[in-house]
C-alpha cells in the first residue's frame, strides 16, 4: 500500500459510477492520486475545496446537472483554473471536434483502453513519487 502523490492528482469527472471506479483503480494502481466528481458542478466543488490543483482533468461531455461542455466553459473563464489540462473521455461521435472546441489537451473515445488512458495521463502529469503500484 502506498500514499498517493498529491502533486500527481487526477480529477475524474464522469457520471457513470462504474467508469469512475475503473479509471480511479487504474490511476491509483499507477500511483496517482484521484479525486472524483459525477458532473461539472461536483467538479467545481472539488476544485474549490483544494488545496492542490489536479495535473489533469478527465472529462466526460454528456452529464446531468452540469455537462462537460459547461464545466470546460467555466474553467476557461476562471483565472485560477483556465490552464488546467483537460482530457475529454467521451462517447460522443464527434469527440475530436468537441475536444478541440473546448480547448482540451487530448481526447479519447469511449470505450477507452486503459493503457491509452494511462499513457495520456503520463504525458500531462509528473511521475508519481511513490512509483507505480499494481496492488493498491
Amino acid at each position, binding site marked *: 500500500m502506498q500514499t498517493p502523490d498529491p502533486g500527481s492528482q487526477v480529477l475524474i469527472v464522469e457520471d*457513470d459510477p462504474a467508469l469512475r471506479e475503473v479509471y480511479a483503480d487504474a490511476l491509483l494502481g499507477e500511483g496517482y492520486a484521484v479525486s472524483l466528481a459525477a458532473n461539472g458542478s461536483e467538479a467545481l466543488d472539488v476544485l474549490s475545496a483544494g488545496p492542490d490543483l489536479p495535473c489533469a482533468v478527465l472529462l466526460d461531455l454528456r452529464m446531468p446537472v452540469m455537462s462537460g461542455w459547461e464545466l470546460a466553459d467555466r474553467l476557461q473563464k476562471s483565472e485560477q483554473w483556465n490552464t488546467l489540462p483537460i482530457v475529454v473521455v467521451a462517447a460522443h461521435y464527434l469527440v475530436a471536434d468537441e475536444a478541440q472546441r473546448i480547448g482540451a489537451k487530448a481526447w479519447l473515445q469511449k470505450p*477507452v483502453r486503459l493503457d*491509452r488512458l494511462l499513457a495520456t495521463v503520463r504525458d500531462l502529469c509528473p511521475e508519481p513519487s511513490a512509483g507505480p503500484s499494481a496492488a493498491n
Partner: protein
Amino acid sequence: MAEPNAGWTGSAGELALVVQEIADGITVQDLSGQICYANLAAAQSMGFPSVEALIGTPQAELLARFEVLDASGRPLSADELPVRRAVRGDPSPESLIRFRVRSTGEERWSLVRPKVVRAADGSPRFVVSAFRDVTTLRATEQRLTLLADAGEILTRSADYQETLNELANLVVRELADWCVVDVIEEGSGVQRVAVAHRDPEKLAEAQEVQRRWPSRPGADDATGRVLRTGEPLLIPLITDEQIREAATDPEHAEYLFRLGLRSVVIEPLNARGRVLGVLTLVRSDADRAFNEAELPLLRELAVRAATSVDTARLLHETTEAVRARDDFLAVASHDMRTPLAAILGYLQLALRRLRPADPASDVKLNEYLRAAERMTERLTHLVTELMDVSLLQSGQPLAIDRQPVDLGDLASRMVEVHGRLSAAHTFTCDGDSRVVAYADVGRLERVLDNLLSNAIKFSPNGGEIRVTVTSTGTHGRLSVTDAGLGIPAADLPGIFERFRRGSNVGPVTGTGLGLAGSREVMQQMGGDIEVESVEGEGSTFTVVIPLAEAPAPLP
C-alpha cells in the same frame, strides 16, 4: 377540261365579293371615324348579325358598346385608337388591342392594322382597317406563359407555403380577383396556406374573414365537397341568396358581399391518388364569370400546385427520416459505448492484476479475460462502424484517433483471424517488416477486415489470398491480392461508388462500410485505397497509409 380559275374575271363585282367574304375583318371609316363600309367578318366580330346593322349604328353608340383597352389592360381614349393615330400620320399605327363587349363582358383581342387612303393631292380620304381576331392565339400564349411562370414559382423553394403564396399572387394578377389555397395538414385538418387578392385592402379583409370564420374541415360546403370527391367545382354565377346561405352569420355574409364573391372555381390538388387540398379562384365581377373553357388551364395550375406540395412533403419526410436515423444512431452509439467502456475497463483492470503474478492457475483465467477483452473490442468496432456509416452518409467527419501501428503485425493478426474463417483459401503474409504507419487502428482493422472478406467472397473457388506490406518512404502500403473473379475493366472506375458492385457478380450480400465507405475512412486518415484487377485473374486492393504524424499529401 374544267373551266380554269373558277370563272374568275377580276371584275369589280368579284373584288367586292372577295372583300366581303375574306376571313379578316375589313372596315372603311371616314375621317370622323364613322364606318362607311364593313365586311361580314368585321360585323360579326363586333357582335352584329349583319353588315347593315353595323353600318346603321351611329359612331357614338358603337363606341359605347365597347371598352377598348391596350394589351396591358389600360383603357384607350378615343384619340389613342389606331384609326385616329393613322389619320394623324402615325407611321406605325397597327396595334394589339383588347375590347370588352359591355353587354356580355366578353373580351376579345384584335390585331388592328389601319391604312389611310389618300386622294391624288395627298390629302387623306378614308381609312381602311384590317383586323384579325387573335383571342384564341392570345389565350394560348397567355396560358403557356402563365403555366411557365407557375412552374418556375413552384420549383423555386421546398417551402410550399411560400411558393403557393406566390402562385396565388400570380393567379390574382392574371386570372382572378381572389385566390386561396387550402391544404390538408396531417393532424390539424384544413389549413389556409395562401391568400391573395388583386386589391391589397381587400386582402386584409379576406384574411380577416379567414381568421374569424375559418374553414371547417369536413364541412359540407363547396370546399368540403371538392376535398371529398377530388372533382373540380365551377359555380359561374353566385347569387346573393347563395352567399347568405353559405355565410355563418349576417356579418360573415356582409364581409363576403364586400369581397365580391360572384364567380368561383374550386380545383382539387390531386397528387398520387390523394386530395392534398384545394385551389379556389374567385372573380368579383359577374361580367367576367368563369366558364367551362377556362377549366383546363385551371386544372393544369392545380396539378402543378399539387405536385409541388407533394414533392415538398416527400422531401420533408425523407429529411426527417434521415435525421431520425442519425439521431437514433448517435444515441444508440453513446448508450452502447458507455457500458462497453465499463466492461472493457473492468476486464483490463482484472488483467493488470493478473500480470505480475504468474502461477499456473491464472493461465486459464488470463486466457478467458483476454478472449472477453477481444470480443468487447470487436463489439466496439461494430458500434463504431455503425456510426461511421451514418456519419459518412451525412457527410460528417469521423473522430479519427491516430496512433503508430506496425502494419506487418496488423496484417498477420488479421490474416490469422480470417484464416480460421475459410478453409478453401490459403493465406500468406509477406513484405517489408517494421513499417510503422500512423493510423486509427480500430478503423484500419475494419477496412482491412472488409478487404479480406471481399477477397474471400469474390474468389469462390478458393486459392491464395496474399497480404503484402511495403513502404514508399512517406506511405505504408498494405495490399490484399486474391485469385478470384476479378473486376471487368468497364466496372473499375466506379468500383468505389456507393451501391456499386461489379457486373460479373451476383447478389452477394454486403453491409457495413463497403468499399466506398472504406475508402472514405482511409481518405479521412490521410490515406487512400487503390485497386488493380484483371477479370478472371483476380484483384489487388491496396490500402495507402501515411507514415509520419503529419500526413504527407498523396502524389
